């Protein structure tokens, strides 16, 4: 097959024919994925999310990690479609690398297909559970489980298993039935325990080696309270 294609590509006319054929094949392939392999409710949610061109919001971050004590912090969040989320703050803020992708850009960025996992009740709402599996190697997640409120067309919970950074879950709450973006998000993530050289210990501390090695990987939580959303939708242009 490969050899035939290479021999066909030797003349300009044939090369154009082969290129058109490949393009047609991809188009049909994507069409069939969209029509058959992507959940229709997710497509509705994706369309809603895609309509967001830009948004800014005030965000309050409350970190819950057993070995970090940090008071709640405030920051301003600014999102422009296709760009990484930008933060600014007068304080020192730890911003989680994962879990702030409210528009699910990372999931929708590359081609994928979905697998229906049935229905599940979440906070007295009957929700649809699907798995999102990327078909593009460039995607940085291996699998995502999305729990969707199919009536209000939004995601309630996601569990994303990344290829490099472990897995994390997002629990989202919305202020109003029509809200597109959440006002409360709980991000659960895995992280390594801090390893500090002894000479940087401020006080003499007893070191329990067994405890330390058993606690190498810890789970952390970050609670995000988002307010003052200023959203610019595509129709506003």
């Amino acid at each position, binding site marked *: 097959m490969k050899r035939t294609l290479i021999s066909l590509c030797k003349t300009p006319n044939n090369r154009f024919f082969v290129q058109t054929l490949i393009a047609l094949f991809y188009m049909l392939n994507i069409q069939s994925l969209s029509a058959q392999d992507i959940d229709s409710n997710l497509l509705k949610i994706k369309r809603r999310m895609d309509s967001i061109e830009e948004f800014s919001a005030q965000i309050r971050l409350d970190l819950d990690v057993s070995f970090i004590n940090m008071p709640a912090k405030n920051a301003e969040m600014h999102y422009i479609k296709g760009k990484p989320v930008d933060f600014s703050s007068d304080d020192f*803020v730890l911003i*989680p*690398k994962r879990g702030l992708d409210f528009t699910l850009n990372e999931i929708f960025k590359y081609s994928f297909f979905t697998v229906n996992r049935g229905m599940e009740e979440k906070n007295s709402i009957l929700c649809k559970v699907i798995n999102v599996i990327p078909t593009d190697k460039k995607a940085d997640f291996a699998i995502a489980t999305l729990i969707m409120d199919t009536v209000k067309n939004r995601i309630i919970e996601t569990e994303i298993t990344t290829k490099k950074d472990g897995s994390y879950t997002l629990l989202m709450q919305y202020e109003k039935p029509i809200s597109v973006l959440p006002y409360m998000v709980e991000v659960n993530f895995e992280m390594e325990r801090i390893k500090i050289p002894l000479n940087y210990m401020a006080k003499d501390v007893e070191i329990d080696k067994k405890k330390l090695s058993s606690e190498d990987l810890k789970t952390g939580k970050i609670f995000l309270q988002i307010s003052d959303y200023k959203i610019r939708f595509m129709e506003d242009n």
Partner: protein
Amino acid sequence: MKALLAAEVYKLSRQGKTYYALAAIFLIEVIVLFSAYFQGSSIIDILLGNLKQSFYFEGTLLNGNLLIYLILNTLWFNLPLILMIIISGTLTSEYKDRTLQTIMLQPVSKWQFILSKYVVAIIFTVLVVFFMALTSFVLSYSIFGNGDLIVYIDTLNFFEPKEAFFRLLWAFASGTISMVFFSVTSLTLAVIFKEATKTWIIAAFFLILSNLLLKFDFGNAWVNRLFFAKLNDTWQYFFYFEINWNQILLNSALLVGYTIIFMGFGIYLFNKKDIG
């Protein structure tokens, strides 16, 4: 007693080494401040290294509060050394110059004379720590600005600027008790050894030993809690996320108790010993 105190203050203010010592403390503080600034970024990198995987950082932690905290860590060794030299010198120089015999020829009681030395030593120590705190805050905030303080004690603790300022102030106050303890001890050592060089060597040895024993595990919980050497880092308790006021009060009361015992021992010895 008032006249004795006034005379001691006058003697301390008239001797050149007092000002040399103050200049040395200020110089050390400036050196520590700038070395802490360069050391600070590597400390932050080490403290936050593991978090880089999970978090982005917005804002800076290399600020005045961190630098004052690093100054506190370093100066609690340098400062008592200088204080011990000056304070013990106030008595050893009297032995050396034989002015002590002249004073004792006056209608002055021995215990009142030595008590006035201890009182002036305590006042001088408090003033020096106040001077050090004031210059640390002014220099650090004016050059490196304000911001959150990061400290690692069992857990990684972050303090907001106001909270950090409050804790640093308390740390200076707590450190003052330690400094007074060392000053009083040096004067007691001067009573015992009389000669300046001997006293300085023993005082320096005492300070080094106290620092070594601070990290030493005696294998007994009571000794570990109550031994004087273990009380000299009480100022660090202000950097636990939850301040254990009871522990701090107990440690401070114990250290004040040790100071009174050392002072009482010094007064007793001075009274008992021959002047010559």
